[in-house]
């Protein structure tokens, strides 16, 4: 449970090719980390697999930042 932020950060770093220290709580995938809309779809796919959860489309749309992702995954897993 406590390692969720680190696991999420690792996925984001790997997928978007950004520096780890850029992935802050409020960092927006699209505005701050250079993701395009398809990248965000792929991130959600990667989160689903890493944590063995289902993220429905309407929930996926609310995951805009690193913090959003961590919060959602903590609640879902």
């Amino acid at each position, binding site marked *: 449970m406590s390692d969720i932020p680190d696991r999420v950060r690792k996925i984001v770093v790997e997928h978007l090719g950004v520096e780890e220290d850029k992935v802050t709580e409020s960092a927006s995938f699209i505005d701050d980390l250079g993701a395009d809309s*398809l990248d965000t*779809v*792929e991130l959600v*796919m990667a989160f689903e697999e890493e944590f063995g959860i289902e993220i429905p489309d309407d929930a996926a749309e609310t995951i805009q930042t690193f913090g959003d992702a961590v919060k959602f995954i903590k609640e879902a897993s």
Partner: protein
Amino acid sequence: MFDLTGKCALITGASGGIGGAIAKALHGAGATVALSGTREAPLQELAAELGERAFVLPCNLSDPEAVAALPKQAADAMGAVDILVNNAGITRDNLFMRMSDDEWQSVIDVNLTANFKLCKGVLRGMMKARWGRIVNVSSIVGATGNPGQGNYAAAKAGLVGMTKSLAYEVASRGITANAVAPGFIETAMTDKLNDEQKSGIMGQIPAGRMGTADEIAAAVLYLSSQEAAYVTGATLHVNGGMAML
């Protein structure tokens, strides 16, 4: 020249003339194939003829639940879906003024909506693999229109627009989406035409003959190949010059 060894292809409408030829062509190039269609007997016959690397997945594309399940069934059977050929189609011809809502809707459901759902269903695996080929079988009438086929022409034209939009979205992931638009092809469907109808059609085809299912399959094989990696969002017209688009 095209080698699909190690690739897995799902082909809908494989019980028909064109679909069967497509399955044979992809299989002949080394692909593993999942044969889908409504009639199981011809699928089993084709699978038996192909031998290894062939799976039978009966599916009625007018049943939304069956459509939703098909991509996963294909991935489970073959291990992946690298190539999707949306070939299945139905006709419910009628003059515009006589066409019922049901005739309209059933053709849109099978020829357009089911294809959308199957594309969506295979994309996740293709995105992860950073490789994928989607070939949607449209029709010459999607570009030219045809009396009595308002529903069919709308669905087939819709496929082209859908294919282009999808091609935009996934091009950066190594996935291509293209359409093949057959003209008049020798199949069980065109066999039913009488001689007068046939000669009327021949007069409109510069090549002076109907096309063969193998000639459509060859176009699908090309678009499924590694060599066609830079071709996406295209519609390949295979019609003997009947419409030069």
